């Protein structure tokens, strides 16, 4: 479909490059594993470079842990746990507050490293990832001496040692979501950052040192899936995992009959539902925010766009016009909207699903933009003429690709939105308040956004229904996965 041709759309506004300078960043050439409060050489692991997905250049070298390394980390966490749990809540709180403050102090450095290591636009790491990570520690720090109030007055006890495995899409933020409640509740942790994005977690290890957190309370063991599997199979009391549904199922099966605590935050194919009475321009901004935020590498991305038939053409045209203005490129440029795809492997996955979409008969349009020669990139893409059974309407793409489906009635919208094995999030766009509340109640998803999308806050519980996992992160509900109650 051609863009609406008006004198205004013919004006081109160009941006001068506005790169964030990485001069301030102090990265070591090589990072060991963070075990027992110190960076140590791997026992049975190896050293591998962490690659900048925008340039394919190494950013720093990191150690990946083997099974023995994981065992050593669990041992260190085990040794530290009784004293950590025995600290008065207000003292534990002050350590966690310190971490929050240090993240704020080092926010600029962390934001740059996040964008270098993971490819996300600096605007997002600067304005979303890092401030939210600090806010999360700040929120849970304050819970440490109020735990029983968070669980309806019940007696509480920490689980003990928790194994936490986090993904590559929000590396520091996901580490914060895992560590902050675990520590506040008196657990010690073995955290495994993602294979492709370990660096900010290692900076967080430095922050733990600077905060004088007792040795062994936080242990950080980077690695790939093998390391993650070693964490799951180690002598931990609880596992918390954020990642794909396939791996989540493997973990749940691996823990069968072991009585180990488990929370899972898994994949999604979230519906973003646009009603004809929505403020359409605002909705288009929300659709863009919903699917192109962080290159679509978002578990709750609004990847299934359901538009009421009466406004489907209009919304699709406006969306396409808006998509063509997205700036794809250098993650460190402050004007960049869509950065690099996190890894070659993820790019392959996106390409394969997009190909399947075309083969199955959906109509693909990708924004024509100059993509850098090196690095991994995918142009923002929209599919129309999508049938509910198409793979691009069913499977998580985890990239900047939106599938458009249409509906006639509210009942049909609800049915289509709920017709998924996932149930992580959903968006509703309407200016009618009573309708928004009614639809929000009917949708089977853990998070519902009305007239907005991808909003996160440490006080608001986040987590899925159905195959999107179980357990919640954020707010009082986020304490429960880290406490035994009686």
């Amino acid at each position: 479909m051609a863009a609406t041709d008006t004198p205004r759309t013919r004006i081109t506004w160009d941006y001068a490059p506005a790169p964030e300078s990485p001069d301030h960043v102090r990265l070591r050439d090589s990072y060991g594993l963070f075990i027992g409060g110190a960076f140590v050489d791997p026992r049975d692991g190896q050293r591998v470079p962490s690659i900048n997905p925008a340039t394919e250049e190494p950013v720093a070298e990191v150690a990946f842990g083997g099974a023995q390394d994981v065992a050593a980390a669990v041992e260190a966490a085990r040794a530290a746990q009784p004293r950590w749990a025995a600290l008065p809540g207000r003292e534990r709180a002050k350590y966690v507050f310190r971490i929050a403050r240090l993240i704020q102090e080092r926010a600029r450095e962390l934001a740059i490293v996040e964008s270098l290591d993971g490819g996300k636009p600096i605007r997002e790491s600067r304005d979303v990832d890092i401030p939210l990570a600090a806010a999360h520690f700040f929120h849970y720090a304050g819970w440490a001496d109020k735990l029983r109030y968070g669980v309806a007055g019940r007696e509480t006890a920490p689980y003990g040692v928790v194994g936490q495995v986090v993904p590559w899409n929000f590396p520091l933020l996901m580490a914060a979501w895992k560590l902050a409640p675990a520590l506040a509740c008196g657990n010690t942790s073995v955290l495994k950052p993602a294979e492709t994005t370990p660096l900010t977690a290692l900076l967080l290890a430095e922050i733990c040192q600077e905060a004088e957190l007792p040795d062994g309370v936080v242990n950080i063991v980077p690695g790939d899936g093998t390391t993650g599997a070693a964490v799951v199979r180690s002598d931990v009391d609880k596992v918390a995992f954020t990642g794909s549904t396939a791996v989540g199922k493997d973990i749940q099966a691996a823990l069968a009959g072991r009585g180990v605590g488990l929370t899972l935050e898994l994949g999604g194919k979230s519906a973003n539902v646009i009603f004809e009475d929505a403020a359409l321009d605002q909705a288009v901004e929300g659709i863009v925010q919903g699917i192109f935020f962080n290159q679509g590498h978002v578990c709750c991305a609004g990847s299934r766009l359901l538009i009421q038939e009466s406004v489907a053409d209009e919304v699709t045209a406006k969306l396409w016009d808006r998509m063509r203005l997205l700036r794809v490129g250098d993650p460190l440029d402050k004007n960049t909207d869509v950065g690099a795809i996190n890894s070659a492997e993820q790019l392959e996955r996106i390409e394969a699903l997009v190909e399947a979409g075309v083969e199955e008969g959906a109509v693909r349009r990708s924004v024509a933009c100059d993509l850098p020669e090196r690095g991994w990139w995918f142009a923002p893409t929209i599919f129309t003429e999508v049938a509910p059974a198409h793979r691009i309407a069913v499977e998580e793409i985890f990239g900047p690709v939106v599938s458009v489906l249409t509906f006639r009635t509210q009942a049909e919208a609800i049915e289509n939105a709920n017709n998924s094995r996932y149930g992580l999030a959903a968006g509703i766009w309407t200016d009618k308040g009573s309708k928004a509340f009614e639809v929000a109640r009917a949708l089977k998803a853990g998070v519902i956004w009305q007239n907005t999308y991808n909003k996160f806050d440490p006080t608001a519980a986040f987590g899925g229904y159905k195959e999107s996992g179980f357990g919640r992160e954020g707010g009082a509900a986020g304490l429960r996965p880290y406490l035994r109650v009686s």
Partner: protein
Amino acid sequence: MSPRLNVRKTYKLYVGGAFVRSESGRYDRALGADDEHLANIPRASRKDVRDAMAAARKAAGPWAARTAYNRGQILYRAAEALESRGDELAARVGEARGSDGAASAAAEIAAAVDVLVHYAGWTDKLPAVLGGVNPVAMPYLSFSLPEPTGVVGVIAPDEPPLLGLVAELAPALAAGNTVVAVISERWPLPALDFAEVLGVSDVPGGVINLLSGRRAELAPALGAHRDLNAIVDAAGDPELSADLDRLAAETVKRARHAPAATSYEAATDDALARLEAVTELKTAWHPVGA
């Protein structure tokens, strides 16, 4: 005059609000404490599990959509109905258990009534206890509220046959779920009698579905059903628990394993944990201004 011949009861499964025979046509013999034959009971099949799942799913939406007040009253009504037939049920349970069983049977049924009353009172408190407004740092009204997870599978323990079932059933219902339960294999009659109590109470058809038969056959079939949202296992068999966990992993079901509740206290002291196990938390963000 010849002595009156008594009219024996044909025991049936309770599925979709109806009393039905197993589609398989199979039966088992319910035996008393001294292995005397008390009655025949239907031996449910995997197809019966699927039928019960379909009934439970169909009933789930309307049951969850009822007001908390209404669901509370319906559970209370079930307690009333059980109380009024308590003596009769106690006599039957006691009979089966032999000479010293009467007193414990009466106590078990009294506890089951009280457990139902306890959870009847939870329906309109759960949102206040588990939910609330989230003070987000943006101009939104953000709140989190508990919702039922959907259809819950219950694997009841062998003993106590009625209280052990009610202790798992009641929290699932109070939280707004519908239930498919595999009842006590050793002592199936109290739960099947209880189905008649439910049949004359106001619990809508399909909200509770009770299957008798072999646990080893039915529990895995129920746990493997892809439309089941959660499994609550009180059978106390570690091997079965591990199997149910593995089956749960196929579709990320919520799984809870707990010892059989043998008293009112055991069934209610951890009430909130029982409710949490079959509850989802939904966070909604609505704009303020703009």
